[in-house]
C-alpha cells in the first residue's frame, strides 16, 4: 500500500512502526467556550442541562455542562491535531471502553494525552497495523474528565 493508495496526507511522519509500547504522546490543550457547548448540544444532544444555565444548575453537575459526546469529539480533534494528522492513520475499528469521569464546564481548559499499550501487525493486511491506546483528558485543576481505551489502524512504513 503506498501513501497515495492509503489516502494519506503528504506530511506523514509517524507510521505504525513508530508507535512504541509505553510511550505517552502529549496532545496539547484547548479551552472550551459556552457558545460551542450550546451549539454542539443543540445539534447532537439537545438536553436542557447542556443548553440552559438553570437546568444545568439543577443537574448533578451544578451548572451548564458539555455533552459527553462533545467532550469525546473534542478529544478526537485534539488527537488529530496532536498526532493523527501527521500519522499514517487509517481510521479505527472501535473503542473498548470510554468513561466520562467529570463534567466539562464553560471555560475549562482540557489537556489530552495518549499512551501506547500495544502494537500488532494485521494478519490479513500486510500494510496495516493496530495500535492499542489508553487516553486521558483532564481539566485545568487536574481532574480527569474522560478516559478511553481505543485502537488505531496505521499503515506500515516499510509498505510505503
Amino acid at each position: 500500500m503506498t501513501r497515495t493508495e492509503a489516502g494519506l496526507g503528504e506530511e506523514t511522519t509517524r507510521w505504525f512502526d513508530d508507535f512504541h509500547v509505553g510511550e505517552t504522546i502529549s496532545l496539547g490543550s484547548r479551552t472550551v467556550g459556552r457558545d460551542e457547548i450550546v451549539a454542539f448540544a443543540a445539534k447532537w444532544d439537545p438536553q436542557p442541562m447542556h443548553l440552559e444555565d438553570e437546568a444545568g444548575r439543577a443537574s448533578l453537575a451544578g451548572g451548564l455542562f458539555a455533552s459527553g459526546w462533545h467532550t469525546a469529539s473534542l478529544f478526537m480533534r485534539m488527537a488529530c491535531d496532536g498526532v493523527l494528522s501527521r500519522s499514517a492513520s487509517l481510521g479505527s475499528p472501535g473503542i473498548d471502553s470510554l468513561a466520562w469521569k467529570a463534567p466539562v464546564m464553560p471555560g475549562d481548559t482540557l489537556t489530552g494525552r495518549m499512551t501506547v499499550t500495544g502494537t500488532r501487525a494485521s494478519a490479513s493486511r500486510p500494510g496495516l497495523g493496530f495500535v492499542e491506546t489508553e487516553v486521558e483528558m483532564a481539566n485545568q485543576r487536574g481532574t480527569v474528565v474522560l478516559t478511553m481505551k481505543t485502537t488505531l489502524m496505521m499503515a506500515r512504513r516499510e509498505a510505503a
Partner: protein
Amino acid sequence: MKHLEDFHPGDAVELGTWTFTADEIVAFARDFDPQPFHLDEAAGKASLFGGLAASGWHVACAWMRLWIDHQTREMDEAKARGEEPPIPGPSPGFDDMRWTRPVLAGQTIRYRTTVVSGRASKSRPGWGILDSLNEGFDETGTRVFHFTSHVFIPTGG
C-alpha cells in the same frame, strides 16, 4: 423517560433514520475529526473506506440525537397525560463501540436501542444503571455500528 423498573431486557425501540450527506460529513470532520478520508472524496476513495466516510463520532452523535428526540417525545407524552416523568441522569460511559462498516456520503442509517439489563446503583441511592445495546443498520439491513451504553435512571421506589 421512565423509571428503571419500567425497562425490561429485550425491549427495543426503533429510533428512526439519519442520512449522512457529504456536506454534513465534511462539516463534522472539519470541527472534530479532520482526517483526509472524512474531508475529501478522492482521499476517501483511496482509503480503506472506499469513499467519503463519516467520522465514527458523527455516526455515534446521530444515534444520540435520535435517542434524545425519542426520549423527549416520551416525556412530552407523559406530561400530556398529566404525569411527571422522572429526569434521566448522566451516563458514566460506554463499552464496545464498533464501527464495523464505513458510513459513506449519501447513506441512510437506521438506529435501534435494545434494553440489556438494569441494576440498582451501589453508589447512588435512588438511582439505577440501565445498560442498552445501540445499533445502526444500513439500507440493506447490515449492521454498521454498535455499542453498549450505560445511563443513570431514577428508581421508582
